[in-house]
C-alpha cells in the first residue's frame, strides 16, 4: 500500500491511497484503501492515509476516527492520530500518515516498521522505516 497526504499554505487538504491488497488474498476481497473513512479520509481539519491490515483498519474506521477526535474532542492532529494507532486499533496492524489544515504532520504506526517520509514548509523533513529512524 502507498499513500500521500498534503496541505497547502491556504489550508487546502487532500489524501490519496493505492494498493495491490494482501498477498494470497481471496479474489474479490476489498481492503481499507477504497473505503472512505477507513484507509482514506479528508475533511476541513485533516487528511489521512492508512496502511496495514485492511480488515483491522475497516473495523476501526481509523482514518475517520483521527478526524473525529479532532472535530469532537478538539485534540491536536498528533494526539488524535496517536490515540487511534495506540488505543483503538490492534497492535501490529496499522500505520498512517496525516496532515492538518494548520500544517502539522504526523506518521504513527504500531507495526515493526512503516516506509514513510514527510516535509514541512518550515524546513522539517524525515525519511524512515523503523521507529528509531
Amino acid at each position, binding site marked *: 500500500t502507498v499513500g500521500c497526504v498534503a496541505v497547502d499554505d491556504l489550508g487546502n487538504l487532500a489524501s490519496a491511497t493505492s494498493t*495491490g491488497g494482501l498477498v494470497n488474498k481471496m479474489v474479490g476481497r476489498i481492503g481499507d484503501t477504497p473505503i472512505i473513512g477507513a484507509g482514506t479520509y479528508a475533511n476541513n481539519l485533516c487528511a489521512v492515509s492508512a496502511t496495514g491490515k485492511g480488515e483491522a483498519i475497516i473495523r476501526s474506521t481509523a482514518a475517520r476516527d483521527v478526524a473525529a477526535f479532532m472535530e469532537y474532542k478538539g485534540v491536536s492532529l498528533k494526539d488524535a492520530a496517536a490515540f487511534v494507532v495506540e488505543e483503538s486499533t490492534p497492535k501490529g496492524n496499522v500505520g498512517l500518515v496525516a496532515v492538518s489544515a494548520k500544517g502539522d504532520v504526523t506518521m504513527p504506526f504500531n507495526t515493526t516498521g512503516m516506509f514513510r517520509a*514527510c516535509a514541512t514548509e518550515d524546513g522539517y523533513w524525515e*525519511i524512515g522505516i523503523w521507529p528509531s529512524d
Partner: protein
Amino acid sequence: MGWAIALHGGAGDIPLSLPPERRQPREAALRHCLQIGVEALKANKPPLDVVELVVRELENIPVFNAGKGSVLTSSGTVEMEACIMDGTKRCGAVSGLTTVVNPISLARLVMENTPHIYLAFDGAEAFAREQGVECVDANSFITAENVERLKQAKEANRVQIDYTQPIKKYVKEETPEADGDSQLG
C-alpha cells in the same frame, strides 16, 4: 501555517535485518517521491494534484505494493484499488482493477466525471476504457518477486501484510489466517 506533506510505502513487520540492497532502493524511492511532492507544493499546485502526482509515482515503483508492484491474490492475479479525497469531502474510489496503470488517477476521474464515489471490477475497468486512461495487459503487473511471495504465503497458509515474514504453518484445509498485506514476505 504553511504547506506540509507526508507519504508512506506500506507498514508491517519490516524486519530490522532488512538487507541494505532491499532497504536502500526503498529509501531512495521515498526521497524521490517526497522531492516531487515538495516541488509541486512550492509551485503552488493544489494538494489534490500533489497527492495524485506522488501516488502515481509510488504506483510506478515496483518495490511498493501498488500499481506495478501489486501483490497477487490466491489465484495469482492482481486486483488493485485506490482512493482520493479532499478537504471539501469530494472523493473517488476504485477496486478490482486488473489492467489500469495508475489506479489513483482513475479514482480521481470517478470523483470528477461521475455522480458516484466508488466503481469496482468490470464497471471500473469499463470506465477506465471510456475515460481513455493508460491500460496494459494484466500479466505485465505480475513480477517474479510477487509470484515468489505468493508461493511463500501459500506454503505458510497465510495472507500477509506488508513485509510480514511468512511463519511456517502446516495447518491443512484451513482458510488462510488473515495477517495483513505483506510485500517482502
